């Protein structure tokens, strides 16, 4: 496989094991809600960024509208409860199905577009979806949906007294995303994804059905993102178009993925571990939400990374086969 920077297999697996153990032990070391909340956010965004990575990093299709699937998952989880009294877990499944469906629907026409135009199209579609949900009264319209508060329960995935279940479920989400990505990279699908990213026409000349695989990447990315959205809904218990569909969310996810290293396995995690604490601390100590300072930082970060490491970021691609 391509150059591994981490040395032998044994070392790597030991490292993974240690990290995992640390993650498991974390909430018992840091018992305050704030550090636990921070970790939950890191895991959530790390998972979302990994999901984006499948489509954007591995397959090279830069989507700027991932918030669509996040929002779909969030709404699915919320709405099944408020409208039909189901458990949010059903919403998770429903959200995944809806996200895959919508993803394919978007991908089918959009994948014909070349790079820049695909990115723009996803951006625009994201705005359209956001506007649609603002006007969809059945789903709460601009007001949003309040999820009925219950006592601690797994069935309805709500815990008022402790954050631990949220912590472990979100951790499981991130780990699943990573495991899935790793499996993909080693599989034929992963090779085909990367070939499409490198040179779609050359890939097709080798028998790779590009459109089918791009749609598959989209579906995987959408489903995973949707799960993240569902988990988020249950964590905050209130969603509205403004919080789950905004372009900023899509941007954040993409930024995390690039920051850590596009197309790599651990890039999303690294990016989340840098960006989330940064944005949380900025929010608390400098601006408070709504000042825009954290977004200034995002913008600056994106530009700086693009400019200083335009090929360097690609240097991270190298480890795609290894890490």
């Amino acid at each position, binding site marked *: *496989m*391509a150059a591994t920077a981490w040395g032998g297999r044994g070392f790597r697996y030991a490292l993974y094991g240690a990290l995992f153990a640390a993650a498991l032990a974390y909430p018992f070391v840091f018992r305050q809600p704030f550090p636990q909340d921070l970790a939950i956010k890191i895991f959530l965004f790390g998972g979302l960024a990994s999901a984006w990575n499948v489509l954007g990093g591995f397959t090279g299709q830069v989507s700027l509208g991932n918030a669509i699937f996040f929002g779909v998952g969030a709404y699915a989880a919320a709405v099944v409860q408020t409208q039909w009294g189901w458990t949010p877990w059903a919403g998770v499944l429903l959200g995944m199905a809806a996200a895959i469906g919508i993803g394919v629907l978007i991908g089918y026409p959009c994948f014909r577009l070349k790079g820049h135009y695909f990115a723009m199209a996803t951006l625009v579609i994201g705005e359209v979806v956001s506007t649609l949900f603002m006007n969809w009264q059945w789903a709460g319209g601009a007001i949003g949906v309040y999820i009925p508060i219950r006592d601690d329960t797994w069935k309805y995935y709500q815990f008022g007294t402790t954050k631990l279940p949220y912590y472990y479920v979100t951790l499981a989400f991130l780990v699943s995303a990573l495991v899935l990505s790793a499996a993909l990279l080693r599989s034929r699908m992963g090779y085909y994804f*990367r070939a499409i990213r490198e040179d779609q026409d050359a890939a097709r000349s*080798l028998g790779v059905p590009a459109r089918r695989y791009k749609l598959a990447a989209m579906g995987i990315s959408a489903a995973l993102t949707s799960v993240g959205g569902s988990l988020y809904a249950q964590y905050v218990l209130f969603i509205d178009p403004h919080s789950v569909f905004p372009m900023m969310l899509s941007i954040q996810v993409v930024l995390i993925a690039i920051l850590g290293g596009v197309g790599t396995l651990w890039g999303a995690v690294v990016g989340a571990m840098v960006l989330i604490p940064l944005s949380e601390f900025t929010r608390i100590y400098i601006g408070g939400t709504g000042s825009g300072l954290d977004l200034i930082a995002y913008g600056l970060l994106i530009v700086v990374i693009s400019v200083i490491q335009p090929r360097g970021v690609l240097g991270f691609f190298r480890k795609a086969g290894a890490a």
Partner: protein
Amino acid sequence: MSLLTVGGVTKRFGGLSANDDISFEVAQGEIVGLIGPNGAGKSTLFSCIAGYHSVTSGTIDFDGKRISGLPPETICRRGVARTFQIVRVFKEMSVLENVMVGAFLSTSSRREAEAHARAVLGRVGLSGKAEAFARSLTVSEQKRVQLARALATRPKLLLLDEVMAGLTPQETAEAVGLVRSFRGDGITMVIVEHVMEVVMPISDRVVVLDYGKKIAEGAPEEIVRNELVIKAYLGEKRGAKH
């Protein structure tokens, strides 16, 4: 039985006829050279056969079935592989990974694909570079990667677009030997080349294009003596002088 039948293929881009009513057949096991001055339409024809362009009119049949109008990936699955004139390797993947993409056509197992890819790499003499990144190779090495990749798809027909261009005499001799050895595997080939000294000795037959039309077809010895062919190439040289 002809493996490939090109029937009256015309390809127009706007008002320009890149290919104009071209017909010829390639029999199983043959090596056919496709030559002609620059701009004669050779690469366009390849692109049509491989499915990148839809033909404006005419038909292309492979192995008894119609392939004109099918997408490139389907045509590859039927057994047609090609290399590109301007090398298009997967830069950010290793040489081995490049070839594995081709190998995956016949298997979904990574282990099998890797084994097959390594075998093919050995065949083209790139075993030592298996782990290197494709972008770090020289152009001629990249051409071999492209070749190996196409080979890994186990094609029946190989379309080689100027694989010899820019090679040193040593490399050219190696390439010629390699191409000849493919025939032993039962692979039929159509080769586009500019380098006459290479094409003529290898080809069983030669098809000549000029300004999008087929102007001659026959054994290499006949072609070099053909008036039209000579004029076409001389005309190119004369034009170049101005």
